[in-house]
Every structure is written in structure tokens, then in C-alpha cells.
């Protein structure tokens, strides 16, 4: 589990006692990570921006429940995750980001599109561990906490997810590599 720094503890204490200004520093610490996570979950910037703003607003609304006990990051990602899942339910499909064709060459761009599509096609149970562990570089313990599952279950889904992604990407990867 990620341990909060002393500075972070002070910020969380301040926020829990009604000091709304502390959210500025908390946003500075985590805003980009939450946005990136939301973008990877949702595949479009507008929804990622909404989810990011709403995540921090929920932190403020629930600030009385805050405990600076080292689990804040997990809690924050869990809020973001729930918001992303709600949005995914509304949209049904993961959209291809508008900048997916950015890249130095056609093959690279094609592979990027293929990766987004393959990731979007994966069952959510496989997609989420891939995003948290392989992209966000969150520990297995913490990712398991975010998803509310055991570490062995998390690892099993992660490993199956990698293979499922490989199977879906097979031909596209061979072309690009």
C-alpha cells in the first residue's frame, strides 16, 4: 500500500477540518494521474475531464470521512473508477480517442488504433487491471484494493488480460514490429 507523505497527511487533515483550499495542493499532487487514468478508462478527453473534476469534488464533499492513514490514493482511484464505470454504462462503448492517429508513421498509428480497439474489446475485468498495473504502475496490492478484489484474483485477471490483448493484437503487432 502506498504510504502518504507527511505533507499529504497535513493536507488531508486540513481538508477534513473544512479547509477547502487544501484541495488545490491535493489536485496538484493527483490531478494528472486521475485524469490519465480516466482517459485510459474512457477513451475521450471530455469525459475524462468530467470524471477528474467530479472525483475531486467528491473528495471535498466527503472530506469529513477522510482519514490520512495511507489509503488516500486507493480511495481516490476508487472514486474515479466508480465515476468512469458510470460513464461507460451511459456510453456503452469505449470510443477511440480523436488523436489516436498521432504518430510518426502509418503503421505506428494503425497499431495505436488497434491497441485502443483491442483494449476496448476486452472484458472490463481484464481491462481494469491492465490499466492500473501496466499503465498506471500501481502495485498489485493497491490495484486489488481499488477494484475490491484479492491480490491473487487481481494477478489472475492481469495475466489473462495480457494474453487476451496479445491474441487480439496478434496481426497488428506483427505488422508494426
Amino acid at each position, binding site marked *: 500500500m502506498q504510504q502518504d507523505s507527511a505533507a499529504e497527511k497535513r493536507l488531508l487533515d486540513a481538508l477534513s477540518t*473544512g*479547509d*477547502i*483550499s487544501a*484541495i*488545490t495542493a491535493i*489536485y496538484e499532487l493527483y*490531478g*494528472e494521474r486521475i*485524469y*490519465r487514468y480516466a*482517459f*485510459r478508462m474512457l477513451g475521450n*478527453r471530455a469525459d475524462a*475531464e468530467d470524471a*477528474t*473534476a467530479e472525483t*475531486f*469534488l467528491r473528495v*471535498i464533499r466527503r472530506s469529513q470521512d477522510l482519514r490520512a492513514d495511507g489509503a488516500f490514493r486507493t480511495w481516490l482511484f476508487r472514486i474515479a473508477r466508480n465515476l468512469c464505470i458510470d460513464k461507460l454504462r451511459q456510453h456503452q462503448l469505449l470510443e477511440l*480517442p480523436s*488523436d489516436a492517429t*498521432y504518430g510518426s508513421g502509418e503503421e505506428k498509428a494503425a*497499431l*495505436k488504433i488497434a*491497441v*485502443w480497439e483491442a*483494449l476496448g474489446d476486452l472484458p472490463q475485468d481484464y481491462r481494469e487491471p*491492465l490499466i492500473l498495473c*501496466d*499503465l498506471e504502475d500501481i502495485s498489485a496490492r493497491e490495484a486489488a484494493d481499488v477494484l475490491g478484489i484479492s491480490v491473487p484474483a487481481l*494477478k489472475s485477471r*492481469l*495475466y489473462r488480460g*495480457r*494474453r487476451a*490483448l*496479445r491474441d487480439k*493484437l496478434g496481426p497488428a*503487432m506483427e505488422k*508494426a*514490429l
Partner: protein
Amino acid sequence: MKLEEALKIVDLFIDDELPVELASEFKQAMFEHPALREEVSSLRAVKEQLEEAMRADAMTAAVKEEVYARIVAETAHLRHAAADRATSSQMRLPFRGAYSPEVRG
């Protein structure tokens, strides 16, 4: 290490979670089994492609500002309430201070 055993711990090797001795055995097994090399190589490639495809999604400064502005706007009433509380407590301070030893002296 047999191929079947090694294939069960490929992901632990890729994630650098194997104890040193076991990792060494695993590397030896990679020399001996082309199928294991292929498995490691393809799974590493998937991880790399995933990271590469998702790389261009950093939050720009403009987006960061925009999202922050929304958070500030939607919490304006809370900020005002906090400011009011601070102001009312400041107004009490001089009254209490008038009875401090320094003031009396």
C-alpha cells in the same frame, strides 16, 4: 527448470517479481526453451505496445487549469462559508487580546 513450470511464472518474471535465484533459473530456462523465449518476448511486446499507444494522453496545462477552474467554481459556496468563518473568528481576537497581560501592562 521445466518448460511447463517456467510458463506458469512468466508474468512474475516480466514484472520483476521473482526472487533472484528463481529469476536466474528462469533465464537459464529461456536459453533452453525457444517457446519460453517466444512467450516472454510476445508478452513484453504487448506491454510495450500498450504503453506506447497510451503515451500521448498526458493532461495539458490548459486542461489542468480548466478542470481546476470547474472544481473552484463548484466549491465557491464552501469557500465563502469558510472565509466567513475565518472572518468571524478574527473579529473576536482583538476582544480577547484586550485582556492579555501585555495589553494590561
